[in-house]
């Protein structure tokens, strides 16, 4: 009897473990193509790395991004950023970016061509799973795992079972990757894919932009997944064309690959969707939440800080004004996106509408700075988590949405389907 075929995830793990095949539940040691850490997880990763007493395994395969509390929000954060900077200098790390040149890690690394199909990436940040959009295996780990991998160039995994997410149909205007992933999390729950791979497939994939795919893979972890991964197609190759010069070997799932479960989503049936406090699984159509008044709208983050996201927000805000009771904060994901958004007039649109435009930072998403909520305040945000106290006071609330919904809500002052504004 022939053994069952393998999923994309299994193939990438097998290749990096030097094995012909792997099966779910197997514990394997894998070579890593890139290790990531940021200004919060990097400094303790460096402490663990130094305990091992070896040099870095490859100075070109470590990425250090000061993005969470930078530009430094306080003295302690400045010390953490300094520790990252000094380590990068000391070990001559190729991929370190100073503010003014950096971006939010999961927007920046693909843009810099550091991620290619078939590669294996670990990062001391849970949203490392974003890179699965490019057909890579990418997973979040803690700072000890990252520190150890910086010395050894490898890490261990338990091979996960996979959930096949079959996408059909075409999304209508104003339906984006965010609405797809929020819908999926609403269907399977915040632990629906715990310890599992989410493998996206089906004819619907072709109608999703790379921005959509990054947003979807980014939030795989909000369903508890180890990784989220997309097939490699013409859109992926077009994205990579001017970014990745090295050779790479894309993988495809075997037709007889085994999945623990199949979930089907008709993209044509989706509407702009919002996740209500305090879990990403609490989803509802935006049009049913008109009664929810907001104090703040945040557009940006590793989930939705890409050029298409800003274009979408700008199309809603063009010629309109932010509601008098709302503070709107727009955060381009990288300096390159910021510059391009400026060239295209989006930044001028945001400023004329009465929004704040910030340098790239994770700041408000995790309640760091640059838009913290007071007790009783409510935000609509294009970020990825709406846990209690996530963006500030424990008695504040976060509603998650796409950039179009956040922009429309910023105009009306309450949660709005973009179609309410774009009549």
């Amino acid at each position: 009897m022939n053994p069952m075929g393998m999923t994309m995830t299994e193939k990438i793990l097998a290749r990096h473990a030097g094995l012909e095949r792997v099966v779910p539940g197997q514990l394997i040691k894998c070579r890593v193509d890139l290790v990531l850490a940021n200004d919060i997880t990097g400094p303790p990763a460096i402490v663990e790395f130094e305990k091992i007493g070896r040099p870095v395994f490859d100075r070109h395969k470590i990425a250090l991004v000061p993005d969470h509390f930078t530009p430094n929000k306080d003295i302690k954060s400045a010390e953490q950023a300094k520790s990252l900077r000094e380590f990068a200098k000391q070990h001559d790390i190729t991929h370190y970016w100073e503010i003014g040149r950096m971006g939010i890690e999961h927007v920046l690394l693909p843009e810099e061509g550091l991620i290619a199909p078939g590669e294996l990436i670990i990062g001391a940040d849970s949203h490392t799973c974003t890179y699965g959009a490019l057909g890579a295996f990418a997973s979040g780990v803690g700072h000890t795992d990252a520190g150890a991998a910086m010395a050894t160039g490898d890490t261990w995994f338990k091979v996960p079972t996979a959930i096949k997410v079959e996408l059909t149909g075409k999304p209508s205007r104003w339906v984006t990757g965010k609405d797809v992933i929020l819908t999926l999390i609403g269907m399977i729950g915040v632990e629906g894919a715990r310890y599992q791979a989410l493998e996206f497939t089906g004819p619907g994939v072709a109608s999703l932009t790379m921005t959509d795919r990054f947003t979807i893979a980014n939030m795989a972890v909000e369903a508890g997944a180890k990784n989220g991964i997309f097939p490699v197609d013409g859109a992926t190759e077009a994205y990579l064309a001017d970014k990745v010069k090295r050779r790479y070997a894309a993988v495809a799932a075997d037709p007889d690959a085994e999945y623990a479960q199949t979930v089907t989503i008709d993209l044509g049936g989706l509407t702009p969707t919002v996740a209500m406090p305090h879990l990403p699984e609490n989803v509802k159509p935006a049009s049913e939440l008109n009664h929810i008044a907001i104090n703040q709208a945040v557009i940006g983050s590793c989930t939705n800080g890409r050029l298409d996201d800003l274009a979408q927000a700008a199309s809603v805000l063009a010629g309109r004004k932010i509601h008098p009771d709302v503070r709107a904060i727009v955060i381009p994901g990288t300096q390159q996106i910021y510059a391009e958004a400026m060239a295209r007039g989006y930044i001028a649109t945001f400023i004329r509408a009465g929004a704040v435009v910030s340098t790239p930072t994770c700041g408000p998403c995790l309640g760091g700075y640059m838009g913290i909520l007071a007790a009783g305040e409510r935000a609509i945000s294009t970020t990825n988590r709406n846990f209690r106290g996530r963006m500030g006071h424990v008695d504040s609330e976060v509603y998650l949405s796409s950039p179009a919904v956040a922009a429309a809500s910023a105009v009306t002052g309450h949660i709005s389907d973009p179609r309410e504004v774009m009549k």
Partner: protein
Amino acid sequence: MILEGNVWRYGDNVDTDVIIPARYLNTADPQALAAHCMEDLDPTFAGKVRPGDIIVAGRNFGCGSSREHAPLAIKASGVTCVIADGFARIFYRNGINIGLPLVELGAAVSEIKNGDRIRIDLGGGTIENLASGKKFAIQPLPGFIQDIAKAGGLINYVKGEKA
């Protein structure tokens, strides 16, 4: 290893943002983190937790951020073990890596209440609720994970390997 202590009982989906809010992540010093452990879920915890206490929670404990500051804060607060119906995967990995015992008990966590005194025999694979007298079996860890635990965490394990 035998662990005996009093239970702090929490519910489902205890996320790493409530275990240690990001506003305190401008340091990775375990004692500084412990001072704010569980703050946004239970503001009384950090002041009242005693060395040897045990956290027992529901499903998906430690979901959200990869911040290892979360298990570090719990460990530095004196908690010797976390028992849950189930754990989020990054938190589980981090717990193993820093040497904080984590026990996946499944639905039987409903048999343990806040303030109960329990005894955990990690080697023998049992948990006894001394308040009710009920006993539960623990699934053993896979061998490789036991090796990391025995080494006292991942860094010691890696140091023991050939470079």
